[in-house]
């Protein structure tokens, strides 16, 4: 019982810390790209800025806009945040550090994180705001479309390693990381694109397109409810990177340094790549993005699956 409690507390602690670190990192990375300094005043190079932001958000009034569908509106942030926390259950930080090594780990993580879309759509629907509604509808369409190529690319990894357990997949990469095998490298590219769309990052940040929809589905949220969306977004980004690390980059494996360090290095490296893209590229249009998913990404993923599967069986 105590062990389970400790595990839970440490996971929650890690989520809070990681989200704060990522917010700071994003501000610093964007500042570097844009010839700015970024936060500099609070702590060493602004390292305490997320803490200050959190305190500010905690103290803010929780505004309930007029005419919201209260239950839907109130529940939405939880539907976004809770699945993200649940996904941490099966992430292998090192050979020992894993809360629960489920034998259907990959399936679990994929199904749990796709609950997020429900929360986003609830937020868009419940807010009684046309921009939010458009954002929510866009989000639902986008995330459901990109779920298909995402799962197809993950499926290939499962086929290659012969197990759905996250630790099992890491062990299957002992001799050669999956990224170095050509068919899995293609799967990785598909995964990266689909995952970027899954967590609403540029160039697929269409649900919260600022220049079109103000802030999309979370326009009407303030204070801690807004903070929950924010934390969920950044934690989601970390999970996407952690899955990429586990499935394609050999997980916690690496020479000299301990497994945990390797895992975090790889994950945050992937996060940095996502940030780099965000601050460089323009945004796609809704219909372009949808046709890209259905007419290009999904067929390629299917074809990849078919051809590699044929070679594996042979």
């Amino acid at each position, binding site marked *: 019982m105590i062990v389970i409690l400790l595990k839970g507390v440490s996971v929650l602690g890690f989520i809070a810390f990681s989200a704060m670190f990522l917010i700071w990192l994003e501000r610093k990375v964007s500042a570097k790209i844009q010839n700015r300094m970024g936060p500099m005043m609070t702590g060493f190079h602004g390292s305490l800025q997320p803490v200050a932001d959190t305190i500010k958000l905690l103290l803010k009034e929780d505004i309930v806009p007029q005419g919201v569908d209260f239950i839907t509106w109130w529940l939405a942030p939880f539907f976004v945040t809770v699945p993200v926390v649940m996904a941490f259950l099966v992430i292998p930080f090192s050979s020992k550090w894993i809360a629960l090594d489920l034998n259907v780990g990959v399936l679990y993580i994929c199904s749990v994180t796709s609950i997020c879309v429900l929360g986003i759509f609830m937020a868009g629907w419940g807010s009684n705001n046309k921009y939010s509604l458009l954002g929510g509808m*866009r989000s639902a369409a986008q995330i459901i479309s990109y779920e298909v190529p995402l799962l197809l690319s993950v499926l290939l990894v499962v086929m290659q390693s012969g197990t759905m357990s996250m630790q099992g997949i890491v062990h299957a990469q002992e001799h050669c990381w999956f990224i170095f095998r050509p068919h899995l490298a293609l799967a990785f590219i598909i995964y990266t694109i689909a995952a970027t769309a899954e967590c609403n990052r540029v160039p697929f940040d269409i649900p919260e397109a600022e220049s079109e929809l103000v802030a999309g589905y979370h326009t009407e949220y303030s204070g801690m409810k807004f903070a929950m969306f924010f934390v969920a977004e950044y934690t989601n980004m970390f999970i996407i990177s952690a899955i990429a690390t586990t499935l394609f980059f050999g997980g916690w494996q690496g020479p000299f340094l301990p497994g945990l360090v390797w895992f975090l290095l790889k994950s945050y490296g992937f996060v940095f790549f996502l940030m780099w893209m965000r601050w460089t590229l*323009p945004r796609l249009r809704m219909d372009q993005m949808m046709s890209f998913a259905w007419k290009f990404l999904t067929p390629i993923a299917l074809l990849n699956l078919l051809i590699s599967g044929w070679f594996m069986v042979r």
Partner: protein
Amino acid sequence: MGELLTVNMGPQHPSTHGVLYLELKMDGEIVVDCKPHLGYLHRGIEKIAENRTYTQFIPFTDRLDYLASMNNNLAYCLAVEKLLNIAVTDRAQYLRVIIAELNRAVSHLVAIGTFAQDLGAYATPLFYAFRDREKIIDLFDSICGARLTYNYMRIGGVSADIPAGTEQLIKDFIAYERKQLIEYNELLTYNVIFLARSKKIGVLSKETALNYSVTGPNLRASGVKWDVRKEEPYLVYNKFDFDIPVGANGDSWDRFKVKLDEISQSLRIIEQAIGAIPEGNPVSKVNRVFRGTGEVYLRTENPRGELGFYLVAEGGFTPYRCKIRSPSFSNLSVLRELTRGLNISDLVCVLGSLDIVMGEIDR
């Protein structure tokens, strides 16, 4: 067609470029009708002109197109000079050309940056543009003491000569900006996503552009080679060698590209002008208060199109009537035609590429 959704876009919205209010009728995400509402920034500047002496009105022209204050100053001063037949020294004319072209470059930089922002390139191109703009703004600060509303041009000259060393700074800027323009091309112009978002979006045909009296880069992007600096040269523009960039299709990408090319043409003009600038005193010798009679219309090529001042004077210290023909007003009026049937994302793209400034639409 299902039930239409009415979305009130603006007056507070991140990408309506000021206090523009668009009344959108939407079928899902498709814009069925887009009706711009004006008047949120109306200050009655044309009426104010009737109650101010000719010189006192110059600061008000700053507030028209606030991204190109120098060009507005210039157009107004030229109109009054034409009304009263005031001669301007050669040095003042060259200075005016240099300053006006610098301001054109700055204005286009902002236009490019905000357009990229509208397409969802989060802040990075905007910051790049503002980094370059900052250099010219600092320069203007040293010349006239203001960073946005300059009030630099005077009737019969300029308010002060440029400080020593400015010429070198401008030359440095030209060399610097030419390098930066390459960077803009790499970052935006030929980016696949950028092309997909702006090519063939909001195509403005030659005929429509002429019917709506669209001017400036928007007209030239539609393939009409019309530039007041070439067609009706004012100041000393006929002494310089420069091209008029023209677009092929009149889509949003062309409007963007024409602006980018115009920056390099402006740099060319500045380079020639700074090499040939004569000695002399550019400061105005005209009295602050004077009477005038007559009627005059004068137009200049502003960054956003043709800015015209129509002045009627009936012998008093103030003009009897002042009518301002602002380019953004005509450029905005074509929006409804362009956006019918487009996606809301494309609406933002078209609006950004038309590059309007509300200050001169509402006046």
